[in-house]
Structures are given as C-alpha cells and as structure tokens.
C-alpha cells in the first residue's frame, strides 16, 4: 500500500491545482486570478522504475500567480507565474557526534512560467475548448546540486478539454500532448474533474484526477535535466474546495490536497495547496 495515495510534485510546470475549467473560456473582459502556495515535503521518491525509495528530506515550496482573462468571448488568455520557488534539502546531523554529515541545500528562484490561450470551439450542447500552453524556461536550471526550479527547455502543450454541467454540478476532462525540446521526453497529459456547488453556490467541492505519461523518448541525461524534470509520470487524485468569501462571489479562498496512485521520477509525499482568488 505504500505506493498508494502518495502525492506528487515535479519541477517542470504543468498548470497545477490552480487550473480551473479548461473546457470553458471566459467571457470578454472577465477574469479569474489566484495567488497560490503549494508545499510538499518528502522523504521518499518514486524512482525511474516507479519504485518508492528513500531519499534525503526534500521540500518544495512554490508561490505562484495564476490568471485567466477573456480577450473575447471565445479566446481566453491563460498565465501561470511561479514567482518564488524554494527547494530545500535538509541537513543531516549525527546523533552521537552532533556533526553535520550532509550539509543542507537550498535553491530559491523564479520557476518556469506558462503562457497560453484557450479557444472555445463552436460546438453546441457540450463545451469544447482547445488549449495551447507554452512553457517558458524562466526558472533556474543551473543550480550546482541539480536542484532546479525550472527545466531550461521550451515546451508546447496542446490540450483539448470537454465539459458539461447542470445548475449545481459540472464535469470536464482533457487530453493533451506536450512537445518538449532539448532532448526532454514528450508527454501525454490527461485530467478529469467533477465539481458540485453547495451553500448557494458559495462552496465548490471538486474531485480531480490528473496525470502524465512520458513517452520516455528523450535523450537528455539527468545531469542536464536536473532532478525530477524528465521522464516524469504520475496519476494524481485529490479533492479541492473553493469558498467564496463574499456574497458577490468575487473573492474567495481555496485548498487542495493531492495524492498519486503511481509515479516515476517524482517525490512521494502529500502535497498541499492553499490560495486566495478573485473572479470578476
């Protein structure tokens, strides 16, 4: 059971928990903006073969901004900016001697940004949107210990989202292909969510599944790709709640916990996110 309900994190950027419905575009002039803090602290990793193995205690703390803005009724601008990413490896100290055996490692830096567009396809009865997300290598991919905050490569993610919903519920799913450069492996990405609204639509409870399957077709070696940035795979499961703090439903708070049933080249420990958002 150790492999079950392990949550995940990886240093490359997929639009993370802050992502909202990908199947629907924003109306012109409408926006959704979120400040998010995600943390994970792990003592195990899923290795390159998918086995859970011990590791030095490693924490990742990412503070990010996510935004969507409707340029037109059919085209939405999407951006994800992890403006402060902190990677920490604990020091180890001998119980008997008190000596520092392994010094701690810290890397604070900007992360890799994602910028893109969502286009609402003119299809009736069901919402369908095409997403083009460009991964901009703005993070640190040179750190001496390989503890990068970015992968150093420019990637292009094309994703089709399909959604439907009623007065109090919605569901959506998406499939995508992520073309990566500089010898990184390409990826197949997928996600699914089901959401339900409570308390006059002020509380939104969402169940999410998302994942990555690597094509493992890259040639880049770990010395240049850094830790956990290439050949990453996982399937993550987790709930998220959003609560509108005012009656106008323009601002609110959110929380999420994520877990994975499988993984490859990712940390294995619970990841948690909290955030504040605005929608207007």
């Amino acid at each position: 059971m150790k492999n079950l309900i392990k949550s995940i994190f990886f240093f490359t950027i997929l639009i993370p928990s802050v992502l909202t419905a990908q199947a629907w575009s924003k109306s012109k002039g409408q926006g959704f903006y979120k400040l998010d803090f995600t943390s994970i602290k792990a003592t195990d990793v899923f290795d390159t073969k998918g086995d859970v193995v011990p590791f030095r205690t490693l924490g990742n703390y990412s503070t990010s901004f996510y935004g969507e803005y409707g340029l037109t009724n059919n085209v939405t601008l999407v951006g994800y900016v992890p403006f402060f990413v902190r990677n920490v490896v604990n020091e180890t100290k001998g119980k008997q001697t008190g000596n520092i055996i392994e010094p701690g490692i810290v890397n604070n830096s900007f992360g890799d940004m994602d910028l893109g567009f969502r286009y609402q396809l003119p299809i009736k009865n069901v919402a369908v949107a095409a997403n083009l997300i460009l991964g901009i290598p703005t993070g640190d991919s040179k750190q001496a210990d390989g503890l990068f905050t970015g992968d150093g490569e420019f990637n292009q993610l094309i994703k089709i989202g399909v959604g439907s919903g009623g007065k109090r519920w919605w569901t959506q799913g998406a499939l995508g292909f992520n073309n990566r450069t500089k010898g990184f492996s390409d990826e197949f990405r997928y996600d699914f969510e089901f959401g339900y609204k409570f308390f006059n639509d002020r509380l939104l409870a969402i169940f999410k599944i998302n994942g990555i399957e690597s094509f493992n077709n890259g040639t880049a070696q770990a010395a240049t790709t850094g830790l956990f940035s290439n050949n990453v795979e996982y399937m993550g499961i987790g709930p998220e709640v959003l609560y509108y703090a005012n009656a106008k439903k323009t601002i609110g708070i959110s929380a999420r916990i994520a877990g994975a049933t499988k993984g490859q080249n990712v940390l294995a420990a619970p990841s948690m996110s909290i955030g504040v958002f605005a929608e207007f």
Partner: protein
Amino acid sequence: MVKLSQTLAIFSLLLSASCVGTDLIDDPIIAEKLTISPRIDSLTVGKEQVFTTKFTNKYGIEETPKALAWRSSDPTKISIDATGKAKVLATGKATIYASNGNVVDSLVLNKNSNSSTGGSSGDTTFLKTGTFQAISGSYSIKGKVTVRTVKGKTEIVTSPDFAVSAGPSLYLLLTNNTNGRYTVTPGANAVNAISAQITPNRLSVFSGSLTWVVPTNIVVSDYRYVTFYCSLGPVFGTAELQ
C-alpha cells in the same frame, strides 16, 4: 472578507515552515584507525626521529590515544621509547609499531625499499583495483576502477566498459562505508574520515575510461571504497579497493 494583511500573514507563516530542517541520524561507524607519522622509509645510523600518531575513533573523530604504546621488531637495529622517539643503532631493516588497544599501525624502516604499510605511500607507485557494484536496483553501474600513483600524482581511472546511471548531482568520492551520508561541498573537496570528495563539481560524463587526479590533501589508503554518490541522497555504486 479576506484582507490583504491576513493573506500575507498566512503566506509568511507557510514560508517560515520551509526553512532548512535537520534530520538526526546515527553517525556512520568506521574502523578505528591509528596512523604513524611521518611516513618515512629510511633513517641513517645514529639518527633519531620522533614519531607521532593520529588516532580516529569509530565516528572518524580524532582523539588522543588512551593507551598508546610503541615497540620495535628489532631493538638492536632501531630502538623506540614510550614517547615515540626512535634511534637507529645499526644497519638493517626493522619495523616500528604503534598501538592503542587493538588498533595498530606499523612502519617499515631501512628495508632498502620505498614501500610502507598502514598509511600513505607518498610518492610510491602502487596499484589498487575494484569492481563496481550497484547499491540498489534504482541505479545501475558496471566496470572496474584502478587507483594508481604515477609520477607523484595519484589517479582514479575507470575501465573502458565503465558506465553509471546519469544523476543530476553525482559526485565521485572515496569512502569508508557504502551507506551514503557523505559530506559533499560543491566546488570543493570535502574531506573527513568517512569520505573524501574527489570531484569538486557534479559529473557530466557517465561512461567510458575516465581519469580523475586525486587532490594532494587526500590520502587514498585512508579509504576502502570508490563511490559514486548523488549529493541529494542515493549511492549509485561502489567498488571496494583491493
């Protein structure tokens, strides 16, 4: 209404939780070691030489020997007193021994040869080899390693069929155990009784016949293994030097 100050306070609290922590572990245990110094191999008749010792305990920490004793294998040729002062009385080979309980070191003098035992060989050319073995199933390694001293420089050389899994933060070390927990300082050569960092920077080549020059402050014979270690945690593989 969520106020900005409350939001910032929450984020500050979360960020403060992201400080570098300390994991307490049992110290790695290695064999206690006593080393005679200086590592000379000859003394002329009539000359006196004071030898000293360095004792490291099972945690690799240097401490004063509690029961240091000296003796000579042939006091008629070389005598040595309880303080480590030796005097050459006649020509011929003799070995001096220092002991601290069961821990012993020796030094051969006047063998008419430049070899010695129990410590560094100085400029002496010597040869040690080992075969790499993986520590876990997560990382692979194959090939052999040779340690040699040529023209005063000690080198670590891998065989042409050598290959190790590429790691994001992989370093070559000499170590006294195989369980990880080594000190690595990027850009430097961290040295202690547990490990000695041969490569200042993380490796970028992971196969083939590779050669590294051992820094002069590292005594190869102080260590048992050639080890590839990822400073983020895992040991990729080791070769015990024979």
